[in-house]
């Protein structure tokens, strides 16, 4: 093996080792949220509105397109109250209590008791004709706590 190739090999290994630990969290968060989004819409290009700056850094997939106005989005992902023009599309909240704030929110990805949680609310999914698929069966609940 040539010296340049050894160097490339070494740098690749080093990059993977040093970045894997730090970025594992972001990768898994990305995967969970993308799974949730794709369970709500089958569009190949998904327009998303979010008020979370962190989420805009996490969702880097090519099929995701962030829009500046909620009414232009396929799905909204919200972490604060008082976001306007979001009442005609499915919403995923990043705080559980926001399920009570937004009547058209269908699910939540939130932290409680030191662990991440997912929940979908069955009547709200039904009212918007959404089926989240068997992958999320265990996370569908009949009502908000």
């Amino acid at each position, binding site marked *: *093996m040539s010296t340049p*190739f050894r160097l490339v*090999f070494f740098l*690749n*290994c*080093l990059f*993977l*080792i040093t970045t*894997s*630990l730090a970025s*594992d*969290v972001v*990768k*898994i*968060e990305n*995967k*969970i949220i993308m*799974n949730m989004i794709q369970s709500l819409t089958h569009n190949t290009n998904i327009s998303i509105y979010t008020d979370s700056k962190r989420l805009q850094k996490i969702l880097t997939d090519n099929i995701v397109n962030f829009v500046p106005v909620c009414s232009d989005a396929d799905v909204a992902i919200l972490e604060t109250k008082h976001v306007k023009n979001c009442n005609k599309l499915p919403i995923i909240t990043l*705080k*559980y209590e926001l399920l009570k704030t937004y009547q058209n929110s269908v699910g939540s990805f*939130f*932290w*409680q*008791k*030191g*662990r*991440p*949680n*997912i929940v979908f609310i069955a009547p709200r999914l039904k009212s918007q004709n959404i089926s989240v698929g068997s*992958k*999320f069966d*265990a*996370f569908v609940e009949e009502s908000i*706590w």
Partner: protein
Amino acid sequence: MKKYLFIISALYSTTLYASDDNVLNMLEKLRQESELHHQTKKEDAGIVTLYTRDDLVRMQAYTLNDVLKSIPFFTYQEGSVTTSSIAITTNPVSYLPNFRLYIDDHEVSSTYFGTAFYVYGDMNLGFVDHIEVYQGGNGIEFGSEPSLSTIRIYSKTPSRENGSQLQLLTDNRASASGYLYHAGKNEDIEYSAYVSANHLNRDTIHYNNNELSKDSDKSHFLITLKNEKFNLLLSRYDSLQDGFLGLGSKKMPTGKNEIDKYHQFLNASYHFTDSLKAYISIDDSSSQMDFHEENGYNQGTGSYFRSEWDENIYKFGLKGDKKVDQHDIRYGLEFAQKELKPKSSSYDNISTLNINGPTKLDIYSLYFQDTYQVSNNGSLIATLKLDGYKDNDDADNSVDPIVRLGYMHRVNNEYKAKLFISHTYLYPSFYYTTTYSGRTHINPLLNPVQINNFITEITKSRKNYTAKLAIMYANFKDGIFFNPASKKYENNKDSSYLLSTSFTLEYKFDLFNSFYFNVYKSENSNHTEYSPDLGATLRLLNKYDKFSFFNEVVYRSGYVSVNNTRIDSGYDYSLGVIYEYNKKLSFNFKAENVLDKAINGPTTLTDIQSSLDRAFMFGMEYNF
């Protein structure tokens, strides 16, 4: 070349697509990777034993003692007045302050006794996220006075709790304890409030027609507030503890025997930038002892002894870090003032208050550490700390240095090693230098214990397991001992050493099932074993459906105690089950020291002094 291409592609595939599509597994993996200890654990601070959030929950670690009893190299013990302590393996120096204890960035300690466990041993852990135990280090990383070992307790992060928890617990002796915790985030401020109350009933011992009680009542109140710039921690801990063996020569306390104490503190810090912060803290504590014993006391005449004192600690300082090329520099300065305030001492209500020795100590500290990345796989660590001491008795005005050199090396993906050589010291607490109650053993002229320390640890990690081999060597000079001839604490001019070896294996069957095994063996130059020289812990954590299981065996070998009493070896087998009824409600059952074989404490009445009772606990936790 194909081989190398295969390795690169395999690395990419395992790194990028490590988690499968099962949502439950993804959530569990995210929880594990996000655990707070990934941010707080300092590998360069010594040999680290970690109790993660998940460990503490599944072990049903209700109090700090549940953790203390399994720490490698140490043995959990209760003293004659049932205060908790942990004895270092083989105990080469008779009186050695073993541990420093931190809640977040605040050290909690008794100025008088020099140990936090006097107050905090059986503290409820409801507010705790995880616990890190550092051994063989010197505490410089935490800007504290030096210690051989450090326990860091980290509170839960409010933004990850988002809600309230209520836990209630009882046991086969009708003890009752519980806590209420609430946390959340409001705009930019994270906050939490925690209150716990414990009424603990222990085995009552019948001895010479007397009933000896270890029962206690504790309560704890803690508030945290933080935003980007500011951090506040406020805590008050109250404890009312039955006196058990008392302080009398015959160990037969009669009537009211109790220790009533509290410790409260405020710690505030302000971050000027991400890498520079200032902090200030105030500790205030008070203790009152009441002991009745018809047969009298060693130190004074009468049948009723009463003692009362307050303690204060004030600290302020600056901490910073800076990265320059390959150098990661940490620095800090601190001023601390410790004060002992004797209030009363009497036998049969006749005052014996007479202060001898220092009661106030000023400590000026300056430290600097450079971690230099010598290669992609190796780093050199150099540390210097200077502590200046000045007391109000003019007994000591000295500057004590701590020097440390270390090297950490990652050999490859599987192996890594670390090695530290240091010189440090342990300063005697007021208990050894000061009296106000007629104790004659004290010696205001005691020098600090000088310690030269060497530790190394080799770690092998694979996907499912981590194996660690650690060796600790410490050479002690000026160790503090009680000289029966002079009847005083004195420095031992002969040096002694402690050599300990430990092996640890952590194996994960999958995301939910794991075991932990540790064994250690020690020897010292005195060929004495004032505490166990051999210890082992085996812990199994399993999960099936809505049930979580815990099994643990902690073994400690027998030895001959300082007062020449033979202590038999013992093992504590504990088990627990948690049933998660739904997301909000769970039920717990735990059996501690099931076979009643745990090692006894080292008091003069060792045959009746077990440090751990056999207990069966039932509880519930409700999240809302």
